[in-house]
């Protein structure tokens, strides 16, 4: 029965991936277009990249975005991991339903609502809007994503490892750092990366919670895109895509190598 | 089921079983025929040019270690694998090329493969619905099956609301519901604990007898195969090593492999010293000063290297030499004792370091046994206790 379906499977995968990738590939190709018109190919050129690096506004925005994303990811990872531990390890406690509701709701909450509500909070408590309000807003919605990623690792975690450590006289606090954390580390790292990307990518929440002097890259790109397509934006996008691709490929090679080393070690051990 | 009924069924089984031997009848037509079947997965040959006949109403067991090809052999009959070469016929019809959903075989899966989103009732009715049986008939058959496996009260439950033993029964009922020509059982009791497994083995036999069906079971558990099967095929590396009734497999294994795989055995390397009609004299490396007589026709020649297989329960361990001079007697010291309750297993070290195991039933309630560690003992066995193996 697998034989009969395989052409269907192959076709659907191929078409699906073509749909996912062709727009991105076209975007990259046209960033090297010499013409200003996106629709006319006028030869290969790095013109727009040069232009891009003279666009101080865009570079400033990129710097703000990176700082926000880095801070966000780091704090959200700590908070999200704590939330994940609470939800997987603490059993029942008063207010658990409310807590898990607050952890899962932001995953699907429309961004306009989150953005608006945070802005109104910042106004109500009289916080000056800018870099820090964006960061606070980003931490809040990304920590929930981190929590879900870490939780899914924690539930498959063999509890007896922790019990063994406690049995051997390790304090709960030390057990977490010596046993639990190293084992769930891959999930924590991918939680960090997810939070980083979400923060880097966010337009709506940042637009609501920003103030003078703190313009993020998506906001800058968005305001230019609304005026129409320009190859300069294509160039900016291409650089972002290149960075992401390189990071993802390095990460996957690293995990693969780790996996291979582990397998090799296992084979050696099995061979005696 | 009350005791009276159980006894009666047992008697019937005994009565039928004793007479049942179609494989000895040259007129009998096999139900299932594997003819020169080979199955290769890439480089790996799972089944190697194998031929096998299975008869109607037979309870047939395929026994072997994991990777020996027994499961592949069964899956080819169900239709999940197609043979690379050879032919498989069921009731005279060639099965090769027929998809599984058109074959008159049903399988009970090792994992049970119960549909998790369907109730017990719907699971059992699933196959019947595929045949577009009318509703009343389906209901009647499902009820009958539920009764057969004693799960009437659980019809509405979902698989995850059942215990392991109950799931196993649902799987059995589902695969029996269509009254297949052959029921295939893939390690059907592997997930059950020992006690439940033993009970279920007898139930399986009852059901097979009651429905008069042909069962083909795959197992790596030799006790299970011996308990349930009319005949056992011992497999290794995609080939059949021996196909025979359980007692023959156990008492007259045709090779070291079978002797070692089925049951516990002591194997002594030996050379043939003398041959006579119906008897052979060996000299074992472990006891060079003592000729061993075995009452058996032996295909080997004088001077050949052979193996002598001795089951532990056929060895007697005593502190005094046996009175009867016709039995074979070896001397040794007790190296270790394993007390199992019903039996004690004595590990006896022969003079040149080879150790043999002898099982002795504990016939009295004494806690201190007369034979103890480091005792010098006599290990004796009659000429018809051992088997000479040439391969």
């Amino acid at each position, binding site marked *: *029965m697998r034989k009969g379906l*395989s052409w269907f*499977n*192959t076709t659907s995968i191929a078409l*699906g991936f073509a749909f*996912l990738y062709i727009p991105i590939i076209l*975007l990259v190709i046209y960033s090297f277009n010499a013409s200003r018109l996106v*629709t006319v190919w006028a030869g290969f050129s790095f013109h727009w990249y040069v232009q891009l690096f003279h666009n101080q506004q865009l570079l400033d925005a990129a710097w703000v975005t990176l700082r926000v994303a880095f801070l966000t990811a780091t704090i959200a990872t700590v*908070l999200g991991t*704590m939330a994940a531990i*609470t*939800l997987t390890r*603490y059993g029942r406690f008063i207010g658990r339903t*409310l*807590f*898990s509701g*607050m952890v*899962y*709701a932001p*995953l*699907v909450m429309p*961004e*306009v*609502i989150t953005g*608006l*509500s*945070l802005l*109104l*909070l910042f106004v109500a408590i009289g916080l000056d809007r800018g870099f820090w309000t964006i960061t606070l*807003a980003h*931490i809040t919605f990304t*920590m929930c994503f981190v929590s*879900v990623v870490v939780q899914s690792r924690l*539930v498959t975690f063999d509890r007896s490892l922790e019990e063994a450590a*406690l049995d051997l006289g390790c304090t*709960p606090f030390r057990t977490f750092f010596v046993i639990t954390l190293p084992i769930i580390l891959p999930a924590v790292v991918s939680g960090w990366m997810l939070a980083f*990307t979400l923060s880097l*990518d966010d*337009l709506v929440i940042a637009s*609501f919670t920003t103030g003078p002097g703190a313009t993020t890259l*998506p906001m800058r790109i968005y305001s230019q*895109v609304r005026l129409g397509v320009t190859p300069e*934006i294509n160039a900016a*996008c291409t650089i*972002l895509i290149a960075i*992401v691709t390189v990071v*993802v490929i390095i990460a*996957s090679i690293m995990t693969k190598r780790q996996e291979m080393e582990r397998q090799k070690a296992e084979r050696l051990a099995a061979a005696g | 089921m009350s005791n009276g009924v159980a006894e009666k069924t047992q008697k019937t089984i005994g009565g039928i079983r004793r007479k049942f031997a179609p494989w000895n009848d040259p007129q009998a037509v096999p139900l299932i025929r594997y003819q020169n079947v080979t199955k290769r997965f890439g480089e790996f040959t799972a089944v190697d040019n194998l031929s096998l006949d299975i008869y109607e109403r037979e309870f047939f067991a395929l026994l072997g270690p994991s990777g020996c090809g027994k499961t592949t052999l069964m899956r080819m009959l169900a239709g999940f694998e197609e043979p690379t070469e050879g032919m498989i016929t069921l009731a005279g019809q060639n099965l090769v090329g027929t998809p*599984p*959903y058109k074959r008159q075989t049903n*399988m009970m899966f090792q*994992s049970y493969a119960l*549909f998790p*989103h369907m109730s017990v009732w719907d699971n059992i009715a*699933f*196959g019947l619905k*595929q045949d577009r049986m009318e509703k009343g008939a389906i209901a009647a058959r499902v009820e009958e099956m539920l009764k057969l496996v004693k799960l009437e009260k659980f019809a509405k439950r979902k698989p995850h609301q059942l215990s392991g033993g109950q799931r196993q029964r649902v799987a059995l009922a*589902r*695969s029996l519901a*269509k009254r297949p020509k052959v029921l295939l059982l893939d390690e059907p009791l592997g997930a059950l604990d020992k006690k439940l497994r033993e009970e279920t083995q007898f139930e399986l036999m009852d059901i097979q007898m009651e429905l008069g069906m042909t069962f083909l079971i795959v197992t790596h558990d030799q006790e299970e195969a011996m308990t349930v099967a009319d005949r056992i095929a011992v497999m290794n590396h995609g080939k059949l090593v021996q196909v025979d009734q359980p007692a023959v497999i156990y008492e007259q294994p045709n090779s070291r492999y079978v002797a070692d795989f089925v049951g516990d055995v002591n194997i002594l390397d030996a050379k043939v010293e003398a041959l006579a009609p119906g008897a052979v004299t060996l000299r074992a490396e472990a006891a060079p000063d003592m000729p061993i007589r075995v009452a058996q026709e032996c295909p080997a020649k004088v001077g050949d290297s052979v193996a002598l297989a001795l089951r532990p329960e056929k060895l007697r361990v005593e502190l005094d030499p046996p009175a009867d001079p016709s039995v074979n007697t070896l001397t040794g010291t007790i190296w270790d004792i394993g007390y199992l309750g019903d039996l004690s297993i004595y590990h006896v070290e022969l003079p040149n370091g080879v150790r043999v195991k002898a099982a002795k039933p504990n016939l009295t309630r004494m806690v201190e046994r007369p034979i103890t560690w480091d005792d010098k003992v006599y290990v004796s066995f009659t000429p018809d206790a051992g088997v000479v193996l040439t391969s």
Partner: protein
Amino acid sequence: MAVKSSGRWLVLAVPYLWLLALFLVPFLIVFKISLSTDAIAQPPYEPVFDLAAGWEAFKESFSALSFDNYSYVLSWDNEFIEAYGSSLWIAGVSTILLLIVGYPIAYGMARAPKSIRPTLLMLVILPFWTSFLIRVYAWIGILSPEGLLNQLLIALGIISPDQPLQILATNTAVYIGIVYSYLPFMILPLYSALEKMDDTLLEAAADLGCPPFAAFWKITWPLSLPGVFAGCLLCFIPAVGEFVIPDLLGGSDTLMIGKVLWTEFSVNRSWTVSSAVAVLLLMVLVIPIVFYQNLQAREVEGR
């Protein structure tokens, strides 16, 4: 581990308080402002609760609350109700399209050889790591009247050069944008549901006489339903409030509540009306959100 160390208590308290302060409290503020009236002041609404002014003033502030914003939003004279309906419709159609596009891909991935599955999975996730904005932007160049799609169709002689397809600035472009941007969110839950499925169930179905296509509908489809629900909710809920896609790809007649809220807030400067719009949007979505939460909590915690 016993509940005694203060460290343990802290692990619970810090994220809990954080979410209370920055997730729950803001909603209460939104709710309160939705009951206030606009004012030319900073902040631009009244009453402003001022606890320092004492209990009497506080009580007085309460009496100043009103449902005027809601009756304004829910009046047929304004476009809000239409926008809610249109958002739900667009999100619903997009979700169905996503399911139709995503299911075969997820199914194909789950049936692919084990060795290449991680690679396929990575290829599905990879576009997600690139900016959402970039992915929407890419479609402007493809769908515009002089865009690449029209060029291709003209070159193939399917349409004439003087009559290019008008896709950009229509709802069709919004559908394409949503399907494209949300596809990984549909594929991943479907894939994880399909990949978990035990192959022997299909073998059992075949063994009991069920041909492959029927087995798909009787076994595979019902068992993948949790994935289908998760994927649909994960796409539907954010799509209802979507703002960037209708703004960049939709036309002036594309009415979506996220865009309306943004306009009300940043152009009309009415914080009170936009709060009321947000509260009503949340009420529209509260059932799917609660449903999704339960699904997610069961998936993550209750194995």
